[in-house]
């Protein structure tokens, strides 16, 4: 660990990284299981995002605090125990304060334990950085994950149920596009968003090439 030089400065990028450049869902394609499964409505997406963000921040703090004490041989096991602890806490808290949300999440709360985003942050960031920086980075990742889930959940709820956050958007005669709230809809909407982001990226690249080319000709 001593070989990696620790850069302690917390920049805007420490936080923003997870939201755009390394968005866990749209760029890194991590945590696909909850992404596809619970995004049937905007509320569910928000609940899942919030639960994951809490686990991300709390486990990043603990992993970062103990980063110099954990032997490399048992580090993954230690991370999993730490993550599982916070997932269990979320599970109890959600049961105590919102039965409706808990019922909607089903088994997916417990499955946060094996969400690669969290283990990935523990390994790639929290085990190499100071607590505050790790937490800021984890908060960004959590927010990026939540926003991505909302992108999916919002579209799926509007198309598949004709509502957003439970509020009906269209009149009585709207016939919902039911496939959107079924598993297949998750894949379709995710693909739609990925196409959009890829197109934006290509367009940006094309522009900068054009500019570069123009300079070269000159």
């Amino acid at each position, binding site marked *: 660990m001593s070989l990696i030089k620790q850069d302690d400065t917390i920049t805007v990028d420490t936080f923003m990284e997870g939201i755009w450049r390394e968005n866990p869902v749209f760029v890194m394609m991590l945590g696909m299981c909850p992404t596809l499964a619970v995004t049937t409505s905007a509320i569910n997406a928000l609940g899942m995002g919030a639960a994951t963000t809490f686990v991300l921040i709390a486990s990043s703090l603990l992993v970062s605090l103990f980063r110099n004490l954990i032997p490399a041989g048992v580090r993954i096991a*230690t991370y999993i125990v730490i993550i599982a602890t916070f997932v269990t806490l979320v599970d109890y808290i959600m049961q105590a304060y919102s039965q409706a949300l808990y019922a909607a999440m089903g088994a997916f709360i417990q499955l946060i334990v094996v969400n690669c985003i969290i283990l990935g942050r523990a390994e790639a960031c929290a085990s190499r950085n100071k607590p505050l920086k790790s937490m800021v980075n984890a908060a960004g990742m959590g927010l990026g994950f939540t926003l991505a889930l909302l992108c999916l959940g919002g579209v799926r709820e509007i198309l598949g149920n004709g509502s957003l956050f439970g509020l009906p958007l269209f009149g009585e005669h709207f016939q919902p596009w039911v496939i959107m709230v079924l598993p297949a809809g998750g894949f379709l909407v995710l693909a739609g968003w990925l196409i959009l982001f890829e197109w934006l990226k290509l367009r940006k690249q094309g522009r900068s090439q054009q500019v570069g080319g123009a300079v070269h000709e000159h």
Partner: protein
Amino acid sequence: MSGNTSTSMIVTLGFVTALSGFLIVTAYQTTKPAIEENKRLRIQQTVLEVIKGATAYKPFVITANGDLLEATPDLKGTNVYAGYDAQGKLMGLAAEGRAQGYSGSVETIYAYSPACECITGVKVIKQTETPGLGDKVITNKDFVANFEKLDAKLDAAGKALANAIVTVKHGSKKNPWEVDAISGATISSRAIAKGLNGSAQEVLPKVVPLLSTIEGAKP
């Protein structure tokens, strides 16, 4: 730090698991009353909603040997809730139905009115049906209307329902004991009716003869 020696690994894992155990036990102890209170409130709310005109209720338990007793926390058996109005008059009974749906069990609380010998309402308390399809059993107005006056008379001997509650294909309901299924969510519709039938066949023959006892009990 010595790094990868067995001792340091065991110490680390031991410490982390102990800390984890401590945190989990604390959270469990802190949230336990809230979780149990939530469950109780949800049943109370559902019972009062489903029995029309009820403002208070009293839980009873049918024990394994068929006795109807007032519920206590350690009494095991089938739950029956009696709903009373402000004057203490019995407005109806509620019981729990449960049957396998499309993806997991569908649990309901339904109201039975001794006056019309019929089921007067159903609330789904737990379901994992397909969102947008199977969960229409909660939101579809036409389907919910099935349970406003669903026949549940006992037969002459009083041992079972005179007519079992059954689900029929959408649009073909003819008799007052039939449930008109939602087209596209037949399995979920059937699960509700099956849960009602199973519970009513068991509970009503035992409770109906004891109605006077329940009427006399005060909430």
